[in-house]
């Protein structure tokens, strides 16, 4: 690579929001305080599935200090409107039902009623005084069990969307989708080796560090003001408008700083309830915060799944056919990420004969929400283990096999679209050539695994505006929640475009009242899409400034050039800063974009493990994440995305799972027993940034945040196999499961 063509892009400056965050001064959801503010608390279902016979709120209402009690009766009835939540779609009627249960509770922890009181202790006490009479119904937690003929029905009006046709009978299967191409039978007939395996993955939560928090004020003039921690303030505005049946313009959403979201903070939970309480309590602001237990009980985890994968290859290592069945548990309402899972499953491979069937199935668990490359980790865990087994049976190096079958520009994905310029080959080559891949791994019970991953990424709508200050700095006003360093990555793109220093850009994230429409920060889209908007801003500012310079020199604008932040005409020149100080008419611009040239990402992860075969515990010795990142605007934050994705994938792979008792009650709703990895459970995660520029972006950006969670579980399973000779087909690969598998393997058949 030649020395960089860029001055700012590719450097590693400090983040604009850093000082406030490390000093504790940054305002997060739970930090918002308003005069006269009340505190809300939610009552949740103790049952997995029950009909609500009656709700008596009289005792709660009578408790001194209680200002309002609401139930689903206060929610307006909404029709079957399907809305896009960013990487997940939801039927608003179901969403309303999830916010506060209407006639049935569908999972342990389902919200039923809420109280607003003078302080959180009174609110908590009052919520306990609400008397709910239930008729307990049989429950079902497992996707395949929910598909059985005699399974309890969760939603009486649900009919299967069967390959586009509506079914006629009651069911828990919301949708059956299929991607199909070529001749499966001929493909498998041409194979020398066929591997078919079944896999299970558990329900897991995003585990963002900040619990949900919101303050809402339903004003006397029917304006609804919301302050909350969200991935997208316009998404909150839209959902509030639909759920409360008010015009969107009446809802003003101001986002706070956000302590992680990973897809889980696109949907609203507390916001509409706080608004209803505010209206009922005489238009006083109401604050609601969740405990960690409530986050686990009541907000979206991602789907547990059953996946069957069959793949065939010839002796020379060419894949000839692939087939899969994927059953994803949506939770209590339709909308699992099975569609994305179907696309990720065989995403890395060139396949002529392929069929994937996906099922979206409702079960008595919390409604699933997006989680970083939704559906992808489950899918890759299954497909990449089967690929690993094929390479073993064929005696071909796992990376060589993948290189032989890898998709490249112009190939068609199993789910249809043709691939643009991608960097999968380059990523595989970088993994193959990395010192980790060829390093000796001496010692017993140690093994090295490798796995690949694909993610679509997204573009989406973004708007931003900017104004030039007299001191030559530029205010950048944007509406994309900064969840992974996007203030920095956007300011850097604007600085690069303007030819001025990064430190001269003052980025600020504002709410729905302060900027044009923005989709949320999801789909690995912000640095790409809002970056496009910011690039447009830069060009517009330069155009305006050239005109001002032309006026200043009294020359035609065509004669004014601008390069590296300097305006020039026929020997005269002025820096951006000098010109900014002499502006008679201020310069401010805005831009809105909906770019379509987002490019998919590919990742290859290499991991070394040591298994304590007596206890079943897996220790990670070394981890390397290799990824095509398009162009790393701020390499340190890109590396952080790779490390964070790998860390979450490790947790998903080894210990995280929702555990239920025989009554369908979630029994590990705490971070003590829902075992996310701690700092001591993770090694240093090395990263390799492969930069194959995305032609669909002025600076070559492609999304980087999601694909790093796709390969980890598969890479770990493959490493455990190398260490022990046992193939783990169920997540999490907890010590109990690994130990049981090892003991079973030790018993002669």
């Amino acid at each position, binding site marked *: 690579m030649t020395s960089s063509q860029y001055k700012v892009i590719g450097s590693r400056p400090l983040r604009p929001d850093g000082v406030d965050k490390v000093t504790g001064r940054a305002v997060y959801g739970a930090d918002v305080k308003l005069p006269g503010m009340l505190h809300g608390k939610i009552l949740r279902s103790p049952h997995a599935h029950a009909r609500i016979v009656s709700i008596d709120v009289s005792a709660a209402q009578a408790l001194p200090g209680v200002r309002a009690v609401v139930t689903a009766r206060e929610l307006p009835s909404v029709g079957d409107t399907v809305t896009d939540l960013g990487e997940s779609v939801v039927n608003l009627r179901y969403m309303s039902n999830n916010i506060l249960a209407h006639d049935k509770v569908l999972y342990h922890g389902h919200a039923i009623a809420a109280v607003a009181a003078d302080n959180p202790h009174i609110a908590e*006490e009052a919520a306990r005084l609400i008397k709910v009479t239930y008729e307990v119904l049989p429950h079902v937690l497992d996707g395949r069990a929910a598909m059985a003929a005699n399974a309890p029905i969760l939603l009486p009006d649900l009919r299967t969307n069967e390959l586009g046709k509506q079914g006629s009978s009651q069911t828990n299967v919301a949708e059956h989708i299929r991607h199909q191409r070529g001749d499966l039978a001929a493909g498998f007939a041409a194979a020398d080796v066929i591997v078919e395996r079944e896999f299970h993955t558990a329900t897991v939560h995003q585990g963002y560090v900040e619990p949900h928090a919101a303050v809402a004020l339903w004003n006397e003039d029917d304006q609804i003001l919301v302050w909350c921690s969200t991935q997208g303030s316009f998404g909150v505005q839209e959902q509030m408008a639909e759920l409360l049946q008010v015009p969107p313009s009446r809802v003003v959403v101001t986002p706070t700083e956000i302590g992680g979201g990973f897809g889980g903070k696109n949907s609203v939970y507390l916001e509409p309830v706080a608004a209803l309480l505010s209206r009922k309590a005489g238009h006083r602001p109401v604050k609601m915060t969740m405990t960690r237990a409530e986050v686990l009980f009541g907000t979206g985890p991602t789907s547990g799944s059953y996946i069957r994968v069959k793949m065939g290859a010839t002796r020379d290592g060419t894949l000839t056919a692939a087939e899969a069945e994927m059953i994803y548990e949506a939770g209590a309402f339709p909308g699992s990420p099975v569609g994305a899972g179907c696309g990720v499953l065989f995403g890395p491979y060139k396949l002529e004969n392929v069929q994937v069937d996906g099922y979206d199935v409702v079960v008595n668990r919390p409604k699933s929400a997006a989680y970083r490359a939704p559906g992808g980790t489950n899918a890759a865990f299954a497909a990449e283990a089967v690929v690993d087994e094929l390479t073993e049976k064929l005696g071909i190096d796992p990376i060589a096999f993948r290189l032989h079958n890898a998709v490249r520009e112009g190939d068609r994905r199993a789910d249809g679209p043709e691939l643009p310029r991608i960097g999968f080959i380059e990523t595989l080559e970088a993994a193959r050539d990395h010192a980790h891949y060829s390093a000796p791994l001496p010692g017993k019970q140690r093994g090295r695994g490798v796995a690949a991953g694909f993610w679509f990424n997204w573009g989406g709508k973004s708007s931003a505006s900017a104004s030039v200050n007299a001191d030559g700095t530029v205010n950048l006003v944007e509406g994309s929640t900064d969840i992974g360093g996007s203030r920095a990555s956007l300011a850097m793109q604007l600085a690069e475009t303007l030819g001025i220093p990064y430190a001269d850009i003052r980025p600020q994230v504002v709410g729905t009242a302060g900027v044009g429409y923005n989709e949320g920060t999801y789909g690995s889209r912000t640095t790409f899409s809002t970056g496009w908007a910011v690039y447009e801003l830069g060009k517009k500012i330069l155009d305006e400034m050239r005109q001002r310079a032309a006026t200043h020199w009294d020359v035609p604008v065509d004669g004014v050039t601008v390069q590296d932040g300097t305006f020039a005409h026929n020997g005269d020149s002025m820096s951006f800063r000098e010109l900014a100080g002499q502006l008679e008419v201020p310069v401010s611009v805005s831009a809105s974009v909906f770019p379509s040239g987002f490019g998919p990402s590919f990742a290859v992860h290499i991991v070394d493990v040591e298994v304590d075969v007596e*206890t079943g515990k897996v220790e990670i010795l070394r981890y390397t994440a290799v990824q095509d990142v398009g162009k790393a605007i701020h390499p340190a934050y890109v590396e952080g995305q790779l490390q964070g994705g790998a860390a979450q994938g490790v947790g998903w792979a080894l*210990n995280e799972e929702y555990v239920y008792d025989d009554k369908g009650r979630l029994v590990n709703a705490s971070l*003590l027993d829902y075992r996310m990895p*701690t700092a*001591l459970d993770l090694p240093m995660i090395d990263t390799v940034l492969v930069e194959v520029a995305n032609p669909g972006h002025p600076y070559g950006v492609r999304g980087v945040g999601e694909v790093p969670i796709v390969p980890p579980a598969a890479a770990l399973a493959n490493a455990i196999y190398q260490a022990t000779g046992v193939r783990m087909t169920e997540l999490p690969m907890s*010590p*109990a499961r690994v130990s049981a598998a090892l003991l079973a393997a030790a018993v002669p058949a």
Partner: protein
Amino acid sequence: MQQFRYIRAHNVEHAATLLLQHDGRARILAGGTDLIVALRERRLETELVIDIKGIPEVSELSFDPVEGLRIGSSVPCHRIYNDATIVAKYPGLIDAASLIGGIQIQGRASLGGNLCNASPAADSIPALIVHGAICDIALPQTRRRVPVEAFCTAPGKTVLERGEFLASLHLPPPPPGFGAAYLRFIPRNEMDIAVVGVGASVQLDESRQRITAARIALGAVAPTPLFVQEAGDALIGAEPGDEAFARAAAIAQAAARPISDMRGTAEHRRHLVGVLTRRALAIAVERARK
């Protein structure tokens, strides 16, 4: 959080009298790392919280070569593992005290509280048992002594009766040739509750080649921490080594009555009892020979 009253007791009598007066509606506060969480989550209800940290006797930590170690019931873990004498003499206890919770928890959490919380999975209890610890229980006027292995009666339940509270723990001085260890299995590397905990102690003869006495105690595999006397007794006269350890481990496994819950399966727990008993005995012997 529920409402309660808070009183700081000045002496043992004061605390015991308050307890008697509030018969069943008062709780003792030492470090609070279990109590406050339980009150907040409403797993416990109380009218009164009696803070005993101001009572000199229950805050005392002292070692005497003849009397042994006396640990006041409110002494936090960090004072124990930062004491060089205790580190040298009571290695099994140190193993446990340094892995309860995280570093902030260890700044507050006491072994007395860990014992009175009576969790089957409490890390300190198997360690206290194998060190032969005795509980000193206070009433307004009198005292009584109970071995730690007889203190817990069920999950969250102890032998403490109306008006009684735990004042201190007494551990006999370890003779030469004594070694102990506590091991727990957790799926992560910190911040977990024991899936299984095993304490083991051995007394070696003068040659350090024979076991003259041994104690084995198990955590998280029965409704209370389990002292498996027969597992230790099976080692008397044995030469330390894999064969003897495996014999004791098999007896410990047979004594375990594990359940499956969110923290582990019964099968895995029973299996781990064997693994950890062997490993803990090996460490205890190694320490005894130092």
